[in-house]
């Protein structure tokens, strides 16, 4: 089956006075139709930057330095702005962390939805309003017909995030990028939003890139998981394999440091140190200063490539 999205050796660079930084460094993955890919990593690992590169929303001076992004077989990383605007919202939907800042506070939500539908699907005003109502009903807004003319501030956080999801899905895109969609929400509402996202994507066959730092959300929602560290993809694979038998020492540390995995011990397992800054990356594997199994190979250039699931010279579970 042809992948919906194909990212090939993507490198994003930010030129600064003190040299060029690479917040995304050689990331490659494919996304199958209907698949949910979870992207995890600490803050600054390049998770959001990868998503923004795909949808063409990198803030200058950040730019794609090399690599390819293919959406349904068509190259989209080098499209002119005007072409990219047609794809955004039509073929790629976006759900951001804070639902209040992604809705216009001065326009009723019904109008925001029908505007999107009108622009992208070229239907009449009346038809667009009808579809807007249908999409609000689909995301579970109670009494949707009466709430079409409500403003964003009249909704609760969870309801707002439902509206944002309706907005992302109303033009029937083939890919949705959800960047920390539940981080601002409470646990019980988070469960509702994740279930909603899963159901809609199954019904519409939409693929999802789910960017989050919450391993629990990934475990429940994603089919595959990609782990990022210092701009690189260090491990990718089916969610069950990666979380139960991680190959990369970083993934292992990340899973092990969760309080849920402490098994009643008094101390949590911790990864020593912090992620290096992009302007002070160590030689060789960027994880080597924090890695329990690092040796001379890891400290010398070049850094390991992503093969068989993990970018590591000494993956866990393989004979040395």
């Amino acid at each position, binding site marked *: 089956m042809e992948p919906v999205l194909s990212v090939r050796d993507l490198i994003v660079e930010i030129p600064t006075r003190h040299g060029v930084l690479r917040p995304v460094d050689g990331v490659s993955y494919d996304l199958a139709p209907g698949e949910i890919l979870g992207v995890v990593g*600490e*803050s600054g690992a390049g998770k959001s930057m990868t998503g923004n590169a795909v949808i063409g929303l990198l803030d200058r001076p950040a730019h794609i330095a090399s690599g390819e992004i293919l959406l349904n077989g068509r190259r989209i990383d080098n499209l002119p702005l005007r072409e990219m605007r047609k794809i955004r919202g039509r073929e790629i939907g976006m759900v951001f962390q804070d639902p209040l800042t992604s809705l216009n506070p001065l326009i009723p939500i019904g109008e925001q939805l029908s505007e999107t539908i009108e622009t992208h699907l070229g239907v009449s005003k009346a038809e667009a309003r009808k579809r807007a109502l249908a999409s609000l009903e689909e995301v579970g807004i109670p009494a949707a017909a009466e709430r079409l003319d409500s403003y964003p501030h009249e909704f*609760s956080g*969870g*309801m707002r995030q439902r509206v944002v999801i309706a907005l992302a899905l109303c033009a029937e895109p083939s890919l949705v990028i959800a960047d920390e969609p539940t981080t601002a929400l*409470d*646990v*019980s*509402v*988070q*469960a*509702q939003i*994740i*279930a909603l996202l*899963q159901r809609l994507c199954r019904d519409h066959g939409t693929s999802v890139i789910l960017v989050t*730092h*919450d*391993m*629990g*959300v990934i*475990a*429940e*929602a994603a*089919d595959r998981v990609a782990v990022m560290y210092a701009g690189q993809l260090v491990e990718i694979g089916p*969610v*069950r394999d990666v*979380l139960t038998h991680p190959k990369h020492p970083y993934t292992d*540390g*990340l*899973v092990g*440091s*969760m*309080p*849920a*995995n*402490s098994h009643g011990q*008094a*101390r*949590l*397992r*911790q*990864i*020593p140190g*912090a992620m290096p800054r992009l302007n002070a990356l160590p030689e060789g594997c960027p994880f080597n200063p924090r890695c329990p199994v690092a040796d001379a190979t890891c400290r010398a250039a070049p850094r390991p490539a992503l093969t068989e699931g993990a970018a590591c010279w000494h993956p866990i579970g393989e004979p040395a």
Partner: protein
Amino acid sequence: MSMVTIRNLTRTFDVSKPWLNRMLERLPKQTLTAVSDVSFEIKEKTVYALVGESGSGKSTIGKILVGLLPPSDGAVEVEGVDLAHETDKAVLSDLRSNIQMIFQDPYASLNPRWRVKDIIVEPVRARSGKAEGLAEKLLEQVGLSALDADKFPHQFSGGQRQRICVARALASEPRLIVCDEPTSALDVSVQAQVLNLMSDLKENLGLTYLFISHDLTVVRHMADRIGVLYLGQLVEEASPDTLFETPKHPYTQMLLAAAPKLDQFGREEEPPQGEIPDPINPPPGCVFNPRCPLATDMCRSERPVLRQLGETRVACHMVEG
């Protein structure tokens, strides 16, 4: 011996519109009850955790305990002194230096224009105490270097900043620390470092914590006793193992079921219904009744009181021993 005793604590906020609007539009005064009739005790050298969703009143209780907000009703006693009614200033001042707080956002809780050493010794200096060499000693105690004392907060990462906040909280040698979501702004690996540090300090210095969090896994790891809050009311209180293995209140059960788990791949369970109701007009009777699967007419009219059931205290009409 209990370090903190909170009895029938209530805190309301006036959320009315301005006076002129009320007169012109003939609106009544409106109050929001953030904490309603909450009672619990914290034993010395233990960790008491408050969990709940946003708007449940957990931070308000923390603020009342450190004295940032006065209670509307009820009593807060720390080491036998009633914080709201004690009139002897010397006793109060002495007590206040025994209670410190660690806040959620380490980016907002450190003054960006102050050097780290000034930030850390401020609680001591404010009481004209001796502060020489104190910052350096504390920095090493929280796992930073004494050389960091002359730096500014922006030179540190989130986890390191939270360590500075811990050092500041320790400066006045407190016995009770209120931790309001101390790790929710941090990444998991850094969270583990900070939680381990807090456990070590508790052991070494004999501290008592009031630990406020929405993260159930963190609470289970840290706490000796857990109180579950919903819309300003304490609905259940138990030890971590009892609470997580046999939750009694339907809200606790819902919360535990909704929390994402690491071993439930592709779970497609029916998520909990509804959201927290508006605290200005809470539902009559048990506040959880609109979302509760067991709700009866009694639940819709009468507020349940906390009852002792074995080791657990629970406020629910329908739960039986």
